[in-house]
């Protein structure tokens, strides 16, 4: 009997990432590619109109280091329900799905949109509640491994100020995670801008 001496004997290496590429839509956002949708697609409707909670729209853009909108971006969103619970059993036929995908279409000028409900507060491991937030993952040509960030809401100022997770983010960069509520006649709408680089670079997480 010998003890394992190399890392590879203790565990396999994770499969390494490769960019999702310019044609990611063929696989993950069929209508944007121009492909006929299948019976069930994972789309931008994280929650239907029948879901419990406050109905909201989220719109936004991703901007590269040159200031150009990343029109071929694909984002994935994962969020808790109105009670702050992650519903891990994904069912497309439920009013609340918890998971969604969005990619700008041909005529959207790079603007992303999600329809959902405002998530409830999820407990931090320290026991305090985190402010409502949506977890986002970004995929695109030129992004070699997807980027993780969070979206918070600017009309939750009190909860944001008390959020133990946001408290760890350097104060000067905290704003990069906060979406702004817009005046909108119908459903409340929040707008975000994700900056991949530059003075307003969004905070991205490793976990």
């Amino acid at each position: 009997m010998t003890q394992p001496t190399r890392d590879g004997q203790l565990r396999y290496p994770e499969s390494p990432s490769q960019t999702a590429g310019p044609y990611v839509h063929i696989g993950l956002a069929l209508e944007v590619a121009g492909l006929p949708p299948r019976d069930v697609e994972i789309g931008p409707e994280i929650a239907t109109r029948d879901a419990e909670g406050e109905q909201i729209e989220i719109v936004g853009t991703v901007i590269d280091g040159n200031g150009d909108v990343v029109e071929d971006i694909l984002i994935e969103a994962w969020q808790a329900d109105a009670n702050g619970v992650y519903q891990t059993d994904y069912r497309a036929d439920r009013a609340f799905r918890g998971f969604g995908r969005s990619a700008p279409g041909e005529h959207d000028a790079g603007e992303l949109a999600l329809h959902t409900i405002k998530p409830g507060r999820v407990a931090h491991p320290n026991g305090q509640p985190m402010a409502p937030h949506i977890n986002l993952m970004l995929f695109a040509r030129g992004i070699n491994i997807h980027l993780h960030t969070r979206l918070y809401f600017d009309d939750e100022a009190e909860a944001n100020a008390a959020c133990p997770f946001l408290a760890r983010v350097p104060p000067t960069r905290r704003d990069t995670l906060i979406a702004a509520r817009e005046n909108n006649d119908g459903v409340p709408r929040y707008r975000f801008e994700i900056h991949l680089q530059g003075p307003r670079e969004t905070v991205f997480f490793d976990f």
Partner: protein
Amino acid sequence: MAQNDHTAFVMRDRGWHPPAYAPAYKTSVARSPQQALMSLQTPTASELTGPDFDNFALGPVDNDLLLNYREGTARDGLPIGERIIVYGRVVDQYNKPVAGTLVEAWQANAGGRYRHKKDAYMAPLDPNFGGVGRTVTDADGWYRFRTIRPGPYPWPNDVNSWRPAHIHVSVMGPSISTRLITQLYFEGDPLIPLCPIVNTLNDPDAIDTLVARLDKAGSRPMDSLAYRFDIVTRGALQTYFENQG
């Protein structure tokens, strides 16, 4: 079945994955964050959960790219190209099967052309080929697709850059912490070492893990060759000691 609520995972080895900034792949230059990623020593339920697709309503030919673009049967027309089976297991870093996870795949046709509004390569579209598939792993982590081998194609990076034949592969795993998109290459393809995207990986051993192997025994005589491609997601760490003291 919720596979994961608050399981922790083996730390992602960022030196094994490609760096965000890899200037030989030119598009990465303006799309790579320049600030350090913020590492979470205490991940929360937000990071440690994710959608479980065990109950996802798959269509009957979602994993059969030979049949899933055109309505009808094989008699109505099949895609042109080398018929192949691509199969393998999704396991975690401790070789435990990742069951009930969504595996999605997309690819170019045999001529290297994607069925995408934005692909203007001169190679023709194939009326019988869409190029997208999906499936959910079984209890032992196995997945399987039937397709045609995609062609290589030129792309604007260097003056004369070509992608090796590849299939894009996406897996969720038990949590958003294990989310992964990568590319499958084919054993023996001379374009692999010449590709700026492949070469965003610094370690030749990492590249080697993305090369599917011909599995002659798994092939169907007079029908299809088989390629084996296993996918490894981050290892789930057990909580042996509940009490933090």
